[in-house]
């Protein structure tokens, strides 16, 4: 431990203060240089005795034990420490007094003179020492907890990374394979849509946000690929006001909502259906609504469990990124299921608020 650690500053400063106060009290009664030497000796022996006491504490590992279990051992140790201090003082003071030709006092007198107050002072010393230990441990723990929480949030966000679902990917590839013979031009454009979507999914990180403009473009790629799977069973519409294009949202958010809407509103219905994506501004919030035909029935077990996972993914990401300032709701009525996400409006750095 460095000589300038909080302990050494407090130990030295504390005992210096003790000595100064002691001197002031004694000398105000009757000034005598020889008595000053004796008083300083009391401070020096106290300094030394508590250092030994601290060694004992460190050796026994008391600083890590619960405070309540320490009360009795500390009281006993404090008395012993005060006794050690008093003996040391008496052993030094006795010959000094003789040397300086002061009126000699019996050894026992000298011992008691320090011991009575000494017990209280050492107990006070212990109280300060353990209070400090406890406080610094607490702040260390708090800092550690905080650091762990940030690490956990990062790890969770990393896990929640949205990716293109394998089921979708292989169906798209299978459809494109048939298109290559049937309509080569369309097959080529589908490969481009798929590339854009894959690139976006592979490179976007869940820690960063993306612009609505880009997210909608990628959702468009996704919908184009779904259109060759469902053909005339799928109809889509996207409403995005020009002014909101530079607003920031978590990547793959709208894509995942659209995927959910298609799975339930189109994929499960032989007659198909339409998916309507609406982005709007509500005060300082951004509101995204994705509607599909159907009735919302949470908790119904189905073959593709990843969708439930996908919706939880959205919920968890929103909580990790925005806390309570974001909202995610699924409601149903009039034959439609609406997924609504509301989150605080944020803009890319260069763009001033509209």
């Amino acid at each position, binding site marked *: 431990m460095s000589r300038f650690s909080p302990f050494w500053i407090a130990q030295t400063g504390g005992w210096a203060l003790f000595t100064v106060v002691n001197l002031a009290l004694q000398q105000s009664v009757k000034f005598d240089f020889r008595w000053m030497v004796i008083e300083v000796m009391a401070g020096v022996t106290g300094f030394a005795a508590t250092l030994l006491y601290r060694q004992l504490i460190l050796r026994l590992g008391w600083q890590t034990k619960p405070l309540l279990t320490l009360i009795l051992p500390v009281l006993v140790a404090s008395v012993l420490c005060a006794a050690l201090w008093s003996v040391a003082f008496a052993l030094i003071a006795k010959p000094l007094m003789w040397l300086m030709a002061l009126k000699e006092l019996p050894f026992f007198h000298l011992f008691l003179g320090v011991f009575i107050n000494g017990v209280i002072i050492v107990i006070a010393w212990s109280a300060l020492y353990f209070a400090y230990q406890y406080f610094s441990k607490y702040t260390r723990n708090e800092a550690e907890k905080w650091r762990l929480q940030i690490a956990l949030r990062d790890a969770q966000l990393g896990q929640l990374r949205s990716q293109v679902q394998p089921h979708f990917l292989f169906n798209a590839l299978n459809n494109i394979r*048939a298109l290559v013979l049937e309509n080569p031009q369309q097959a080529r454009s589908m490969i481009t849509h798929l590339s854009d979507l894959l690139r976006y999914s592979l490179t976007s990180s869940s820690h960063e946000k993306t612009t609505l403009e880009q997210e909608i473009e990628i959702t468009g790629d996704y919908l184009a690929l779904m259109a*060759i799977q*469902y053909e005339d069973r799928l109809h889509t519409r996207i409403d995005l006001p020009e002014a909101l294009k530079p607003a920031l949202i978590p990547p793959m958010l709208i894509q995942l909502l659209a995927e959910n809407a298609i799975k339930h509103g189109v994929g499960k219905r*032989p007659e198909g259906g339409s998916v309507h994506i609406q982005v709007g501004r509500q005060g300082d919030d951004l509101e995204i609504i994705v509607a599909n035909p159907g009735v919302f029935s949470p908790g119904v077990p189905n*073959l593709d469990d990843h969708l439930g996972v996908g919706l939880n993914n959205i919920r968890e990401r929103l909580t990790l990124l925005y806390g309570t300032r974001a909202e995610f709701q699924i409601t149903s009525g009039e034959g439609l299921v609406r997924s609504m996400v509301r989150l605080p409006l944020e803009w890319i750095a260069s763009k001033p608020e509209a």
Partner: protein
Amino acid sequence: MKAIIVEDSRLARVELLTLLQAHPEVEVVGEAANAEEAKILLSKTETDLLFLDIQLPGANGFELLEALDEVPVVIFTTAYDAYALKSFEYNALDYLLKPIKPERLARAIEKALAQQIQRQSGAERLDLEHRIFVKDGERCWIVRLGDIRILEVYGNYTRIYFEDQRPLVLRSLNYLEERLQPDLFFRVNRQQLVNVRFIAGVDNALGGQLRLRLQTGETVEVSRRQALKLRETLRI
């Protein structure tokens, strides 16, 4: 071999048809985009082979099979389905992953042809060669009727015993009894139907009842009313 394709994506059907051009032994006699269409098609058309996508709008592929009284040879086609693939670990159903590799398709068709030949051998045993689709929780089987030894009432369902499995079928015992040949599956009491080919011996029990010993060591009580009928059946 007459085949039907059940796929909800038109392009996926086109793709499979293209791949099947290399297999003149398979004749595609119909296509369906969902389970409902498939059911109607199967009831009207004689079908040996079913190419079946698991994910379908409305009822899925498993539900379609459960609704059929008799299951043709089935080859599942799926893009990626962790759940469905898991259920195949337990039995010998064949499946193809989309996009389908031509060699993999060739092997599946070969297997289907072998299965069809096995089914057709011996006309009198045809009934025992019928197969039903059974799904219990996460597991599924295509079971040969001849392998079932006991069918037992379980509420509105029926528990079937074959090998070391006892899954539930979502049909009543009465429904199944009507569709089974009475000289092959005998109603021994209110609760149970027994496959007569599994009977190893008959013991007399108290009160004029009979007790059947099966080859597997299981015993089944025969009600007094049915005991007489059983004696007649076994005498023949």
